[in-house]
């Protein structure tokens, strides 16, 4: 039966709330603090995800979901208005700019409509996109500076464009520009479509490569959940397909991989996600401890009230509802406050965390997320925490028997359990009385002590863990020499020294003449040639490829590889190292010094995992083996079935079914044989910084002689052990690579030490903030426990005073109670810290190879004085509430 009693229940809940202002304040604060924790966490996490995605989009060059490539005008008109497509943008390319100043950049000259520019981050920040029928163009600031043109609207600039094989020189009037984004691959010049058509006609464009002048349709769907499917559905609807390359109705597709979820999880460590889950559980637990405690205490205090309600006919269900409504009303105030403050904290912390987590440049920090999901999620989790927390107290209130409730005193539960011990004639003291009082509401005492301990433990763990990050271990693995200087691309994880630019002679000459350098050397890298070794088929089946590909794929791969006799030609990477660099190698087996004295000896490179263990699948050669290497100036593409040779230019036009492979071109190669003198590992800072093939090291003379090239990849050196000299060098390098030759970059112990410090500081900062807020919650819980302990006992205290307890003795008893809480927290914290920290350290050690566990007790002792002070002060402050009323007033009060 439903009774229209909602109003009545709400009124009761509301009136109950009004009766306990202080308790409400504490509850609201508790809910707000819990919400702050959730909001901050979610802000950081979502900002991380969004910045990661944004970084991907910037790399890809667009945030459009997908692209239909190389369309004709008819195809474009047909597809663009499909109802599945929510928004579309158009681009047509004229070609790449070929001016000398652009030899390090890719400059794409094209027409873009407004949407395409918007998707691709090329909407002018100043000015506007070109107008039709004019020779206006918009571009970025870096391109203008390369051309030496002032960024002023109306200025003219001239570039040479390769239009389908025909070069043409065009002059544009600047109508808009934007900041260049370091992350993106290409620079853009955007012109009007009318101008594009003019240029195409002038150059007699045949669109031989399929791209020049054709229509590129970038599209946004309703959401990013099934981009590939959506693209194909659109094609199918209009009679096109993407499966058979040769056929007429084939259309090329592109999916923005920035949206692919898996990418995110590859890059953001699983450990980060695990960390977030752990923190969420921790916050729920922290919130539970205080909110549960507040309601538990208040229900215990109001139990007679609930008994009375029951006597006059309120059902258990209704009483439960009254408690729940109270908690939700208070959440209604606490949660918005928490969301606001939490977002503020998140905004401050997100850049720090993202900066420290993405030490491999996978995320470029741009902005803090303002996703509504943060607020919805945080609010939801807070409400869940509140509901979980008042489940038991509301049950307790609902279950109360009216008769029992009238007899109920706080120590009820205890009296039944306490053993009847032999009467000791010792009687009591203030100490034992205070101690006995701790047992009145054991739940309250336990939960309060646990809640206080939580922050101490967290803080202790934070300090232990952040102290465990060993700079020495980190540096020894990250960098082995004091300084390395190279072309900037060498240090860029996305380029891997991709443009093969040598470290400039100028800087090497400068450095060679500088004081304080104790040893130096170059390492030569592969440029303008290809290297192969000769291996057995079986090695491919068991080598590194087998770790990434299925047996079937590997067989396919083997069948497509170039052969000589029964051996396979396998691409490798080689180094030519000066003696200084050879000395930096870690030797697992053999004698590396033979490379300095003997000819035709080689070192086989094996990689190490982060913990310094040799990964034996990364090479095949052992000491004493003979390695036969083929150096080739050129390669050629050929059909593995027919043996037909193709020009590299024609590869695009081949049917997808053709089995094409690459091999050294006849007449451009020579073979050499070496004996493996040593098995080594190269420190990460000194290798190619990627692993794709087996790697070998020669000494530099042999390298130069055998490869016929001498392109130094980097120059590295150690310095005298004098901080001042190193500092000077650091300044010199920073200045040189920023101002004199920006194409250069360098790394030093300082760079890595800085990186390490910022990581450790982030850890310490996050941990401290978490401990601080959890600590606040613990203190709030403590305050609540002390306050309610005093309020519920105010009559008892009046009685004690009437039989002769002085105010001083009463205060002493209350302070002792406070100190017992402190003592309990310290003891529990100590036990928890000792038991938890080894396993926490274990987890962290598995996540971060540069972690070394040392147990520390100091942080725990740092918190002792703080909590002792609180243990004294909070009871004294709370006592003032009590002392406001006279003994007689309190004695007279009958609940």
């Amino acid at each position, binding site marked *: 039966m439903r009774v229209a009693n909602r109003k009545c229940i709400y009124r009761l809940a509301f009136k109950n709330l009004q009766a306990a202002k202080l308790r409400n304040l504490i509850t609201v604060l508790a809910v707000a603090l819990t919400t702050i924790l959730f909001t901050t966490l979610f802000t950081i996490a979502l900002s991380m995800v969004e910045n990661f995605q944004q970084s991907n989009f910037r790399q890809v060059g667009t945030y459009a979901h997908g692209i239909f490539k190389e369309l004709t005008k008819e195809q474009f008109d047909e597809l663009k208005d499909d109802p599945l497509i929510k928004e579309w943008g158009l681009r047509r390319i004229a070609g790449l700019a070929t001016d000398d100043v652009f030899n390090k950049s890719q400059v794409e000259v094209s027409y873009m409509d407004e949407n395409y520019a918007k998707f691709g981050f090329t909407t002018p920040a100043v000015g506007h996109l070109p107008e039709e029928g004019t020779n206006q163009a918009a571009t970025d600031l870096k391109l203008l500076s390369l051309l030496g043109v002032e960024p002023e609207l109306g200025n003219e600039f001239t570039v040479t464009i390769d239009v389908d094989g025909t070069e043409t020189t065009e002059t544009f009037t600047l109508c808009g520009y934007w900041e260049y984004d370091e992350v993106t691959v290409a620079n853009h010049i955007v012109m009007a479509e009318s101008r594009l058509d003019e240029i195409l006609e002038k150059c007699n464009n045949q669109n031989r490569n399929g791209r020049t002048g054709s229509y590129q349709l970038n599209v946004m769907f309703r959401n990013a959940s099934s981009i590939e499917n959506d693209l194909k559905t659109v094609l199918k609807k209009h009679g096109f397909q993407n499966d058979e390359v040769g056929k007429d109705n084939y259309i090329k597709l592109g999916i923005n991989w920035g949206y692919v979820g898996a990418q995110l999880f590859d890059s953001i460590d699983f450990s980060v996600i695990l960390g977030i889950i752990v923190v969420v559980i921790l916050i729920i637990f922290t919130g539970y401890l205080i909110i549960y405690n507040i309601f538990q205490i208040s229900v215990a205090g109001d139990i007679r009230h609930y008994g009375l309600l029951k006597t006059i006919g309120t059902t258990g269900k209704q009483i439960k509802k009254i408690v729940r409504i109270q908690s939700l009303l208070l959440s209604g105030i606490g949660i918005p406050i928490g969301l606001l403050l939490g977002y503020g904290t998140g905004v401050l912390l997100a850049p720090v965390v993202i900066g420290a987590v993405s030490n491999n440049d996978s995320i470029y920090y741009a902005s803090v997320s303002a996703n509504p999901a943060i607020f919805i999620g945080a609010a939801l989790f807070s409400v869940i925490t509140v509901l979980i927390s008042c489940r038991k107290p509301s049950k307790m209130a609902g279950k109360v028997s009216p008769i029992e409730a009238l007899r109920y*005193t706080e*120590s*009820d539960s205890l009296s039944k359990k306490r053993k009847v011990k032999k009467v000791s*004639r010792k*009687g009591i003291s203030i100490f034992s009385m205070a101690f006995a009082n701790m047992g009145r509401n054991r739940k309250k005492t336990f939960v309060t002590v646990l809640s206080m301990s939580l922050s101490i433990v967290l803080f202790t763990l934070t300090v232990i863990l952040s102290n465990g990050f060993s700079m020495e271990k980190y540096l020894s693995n990250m960098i082995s020499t004091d300084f390395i200087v190279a072309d900037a691309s060498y240090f860029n994880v996305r380029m891997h020294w991709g443009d093969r630019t040598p470290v400039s002679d100028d800087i090497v000459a400068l450095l060679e003449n500088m004081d304080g350098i104790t040893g130096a050397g170059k390492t030569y890298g592969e440029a303008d040639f290809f290297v192969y070794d000769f291996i057995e088929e079986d090695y491919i089946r068991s080598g590194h490829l087998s770790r990434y590909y299925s047996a079937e794929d590997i067989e396919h791969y083997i069948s497509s590889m170039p052969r000589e006799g029964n051996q396979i030609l396998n691409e490798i990477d080689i180094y030519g190292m000066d003696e200084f660099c050879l000395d930096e190698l870690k030797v697992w087996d053999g004698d590396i010094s033979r490379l300095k004295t003997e000819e035709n000896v080689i070192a086989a490179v094996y990689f190490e995992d982060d913990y310094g263990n040799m990964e034996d699948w990364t090479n095949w050669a052992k000491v004493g083996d003979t390695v036969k290497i083929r150096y080739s100036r050129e390669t050629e593409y050929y059909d593995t079935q027919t043996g037909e040779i193709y020009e590299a230019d024609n590869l695009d036009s081949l049917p997808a079914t053709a089995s094409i492979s690459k091999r050294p071109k006849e007449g451009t190669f020579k073979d050499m044989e070496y004996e493996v003198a040593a098995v080594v590992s190269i420190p990460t800072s000194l290798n190619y910084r990627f692993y794709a093939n087996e790697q070998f090291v020669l000494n530099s003379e042999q390298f130069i002689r055998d490869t016929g090239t001498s392109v130094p990849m980097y120059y590295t050196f150690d310095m005298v052990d004098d901080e001042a000299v190193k500092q000077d060098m650091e300044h010199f390098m920073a200045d040189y690579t920023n101002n004199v030759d920006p194409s250069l970059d360098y790394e030093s112990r300082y760079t890595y030490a800085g990186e390490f410090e910022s990581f450790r500081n982030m850890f310490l900062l996050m941990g401290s903030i978490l401990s601080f807020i959890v600590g606040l919650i613990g203190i709030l819980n403590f305050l609540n426990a002390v306050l309610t302990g005093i309020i519920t006992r105010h009559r008892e205290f009046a009685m004690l005073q*009437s039989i*002769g307890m002085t105010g001083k003795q009463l205060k002493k008893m209350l302070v002792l109670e406070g100190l017992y809480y402190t003592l309990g927290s310290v003891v529990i914290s100590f036990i928890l810290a000792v038991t938890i920290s080894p396993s926490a350290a274990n987890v962290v050690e598995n996540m971060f190879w540069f972690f070394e566990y040392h147990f520390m007790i100091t942080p725990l002792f740092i918190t002792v004085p703080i909590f002792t002070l609180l243990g004294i002060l909070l009871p004294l402050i709370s006592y003032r509430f009590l002392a406001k009323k*006279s*003994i007689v007033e309190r004695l007279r009060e009958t609940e």
Partner: protein
Amino acid sequence: MAILSTTNLKKIYGNGENAVHALDGVTLSIEPGEFTAIIGTSGSGKSTLLHMLGGLDRPTSGSVTVDGKDIFSLKDEALTIFRRRKIGFVFQNYNLVPVLNVYENIVLPIQLDGNEPDAAYIDNIIETLGLSEKLSNLPNNLSGGQQQRVAIARAIASKPAIILADEPTGNLDSKTSQDVLGLLKLTSKKFSQTIVMITHNEEIAQLADRIIRIEDGKIVTRENM
């Protein structure tokens, strides 16, 4: 010489039009060993008088002398100490400390004073009040009558000059009331205590040596039994 006396004791709550004269010039004197009942209807001012006698509340004017000492000349802290040495309280709702057992409750005032209880004397009290079997029980496990007996033991334990009892039987049924009161009277005789008891119950008051009737803050009659 009177062990307890008051002179023109007044207590006024509020002021002007709203002034309530809870006590309106009470003068009385009680001799050692006397068992006095103060009787009056609710609101007559009898509880206020008891609180004044015990030094729990300060009067607007007038004085209270206990054992020759004007108690309101003492500061709060000193008054509390004086109280625990000279005055024992028995309340209507027993007011025992729930976390302490019976024995601990009884010796609490003595130990609050930093003294060791007189074991023989305490045993005697316990024996007299029939609490020997209950010493390690917590108050919640006792019946109302038992709890009030513990309260009486506590009041007597510190050998006070007077015992003030505020409706000591108010929460008890009539049979238990008679028992408790009998014990109160017995112990007061045995340990030669002076008792001042408040009650609104005529029948109970009849057990006293002397009855003081109070109405509207004034003493209306004094009768010796």
